[in-house]
């Protein structure tokens, strides 16, 4: 895991309801300080001089209350607690509501090279956004070799050995109006303990694909912005493999298989590939089938249920007909055995 510094926090590119609106108003040399914890601390107790169990590895948030207290300390000329605060190894201090630190606080922060950040958001809103952003940053992650596409709203991760046709399949899916999230290198993160989010390993490079015979192509330019997506939850894993006639493939699909990434299980299908098999259609259908399952309808199971019901009714009818026509009533009837 790379180190995450205060500067990286300022550089986080978050949009609209996730934006942190941060700016640095002092202590710039300290921007290289590392943030190690996804938590926040309101340093009310610390400002009062109580430093037991002080969460010094956390970002220190100064809201209206803390700032008012700082002003009172300023008036009374007390700076001991503030000096003590900056003797601790803290990543940065942060003022919400566009509040300004008091002059003495500002000086002490500058002296200890502690970055002072400011946002115009209210404390509670800012806290929830920051925790969300940081838990994404600190989420366990790994990079895997595969292609992530969004098909009918379902995030489908296509896996398989190189040369099996992952990118070609994804290209056909994009051509059919689905979206490409990442080709070849998919970075997956486990968020909130049970959600797997996938995105391109290097988003600065945009959405490109390598197709054998064509080379590198730009999906955004060729198919438009409607054909791409930045991040998507992984909801289905499809592994393509060369058809092996000795292997037994699932012919019914009533059994639910799953594959585990970062401790999260995702529905998993193994699809054998051979010339003439239209893989994109199979993936589209798998995605729709996955949606049906989410709605509580399991095609294979329901089908088997109706087969069972039908067999039963057939048996019942046999009993009825035999009772009518057979004079010596046979007790060892099929229906009884079933």
């Amino acid at each position, binding site marked *: 895991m790379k180190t995450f510094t205060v500067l990286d926090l300022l550089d986080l590119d978050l949009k609209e309801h996730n934006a942190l609106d941060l700016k640095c108003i002092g202590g710039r040399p300290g921007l290289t300080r590392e943030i190690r914890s996804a938590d926040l601390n309101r340093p009310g107790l610390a400002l009062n001089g109580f430093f037991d169990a002080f969460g010094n590895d956390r970002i220190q948030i100064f809201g209206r209350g803390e700032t008012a207290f700082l002003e009172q300390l300023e008036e009374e000329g007390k700076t001991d607690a503030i000096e003590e605060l900056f003797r601790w190894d803290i990543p940065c201090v942060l003022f919400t509501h566009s509040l300004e630190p008091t002059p003495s606080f500002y000086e002490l922060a500058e002296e200890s090279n502690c970055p002072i950040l400011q946002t115009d958001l209210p404390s509670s809103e800012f806290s929830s956004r920051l925790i969300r952003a940081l838990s994404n940053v600190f989420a366990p992650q790994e990079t895997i070799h595969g292609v992530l596409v969004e098909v009918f709203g379902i995030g489908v991760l296509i896996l398989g050995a190189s040369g099996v046709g992952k990118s070609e399949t994804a290209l056909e899916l994009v051509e059919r109006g689905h979206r490409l999230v990442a080709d*070849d290198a998919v970075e997956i993160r486990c968020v909130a303990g049970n959600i797997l989010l996938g995105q*391109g390993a*290097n988003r600065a*490079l945009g959405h490109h694909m390598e197709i054998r015979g064509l080379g*590198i192509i730009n999906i955004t330019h060729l198919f438009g912005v409607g054909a791409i997506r930045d991040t998507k939850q992984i909801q289905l894993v499809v592994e393509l493999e060369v058809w092996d006639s000795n292997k037994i493939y699932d012919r019914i699909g009533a059994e639910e298989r799953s594959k585990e990434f970062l401790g999260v299980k995702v529905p998993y299908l193994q699809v054998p590939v051979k010339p003439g098999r239209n893989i994109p259609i199979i993936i589209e259908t798998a995605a729709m089938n996955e949606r049906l399952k989410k709605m509580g309808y399991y095609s294979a199971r329901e089908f088997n249920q109706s087969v069972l019901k039908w067999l039963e009714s057939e048996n019942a009818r046999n009993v009825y007909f035999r009772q009518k026509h057979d004079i010596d009533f046979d007790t060892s009837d099929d229906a009884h055995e079933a």
Partner: protein
Amino acid sequence: MTEKEITVRNRAGIHARPAALIVQTAGQFESEIILKKDSEEINAKSIMGIITLGAGYNSKLTVAADGSDESDAVEAIAALFENRFEEE
């Protein structure tokens, strides 16, 4: 499993052409070949994967191979890096 530490010695870093050379070379071997940079692991037979590693000048990578011809594969890939992909 054979592993070797390598350094990117050509000025331009691993851009499209070096990546293509790596993929071509890796493709000649049976073994599974992986390039590692920091915590990222990338299949050396995937061109987009190698480019997205963003390995610039002087960055350190590890090449690892697993399979029947693993030591030859690692040597072949390492040789590409040592020859600076026939670049500056």
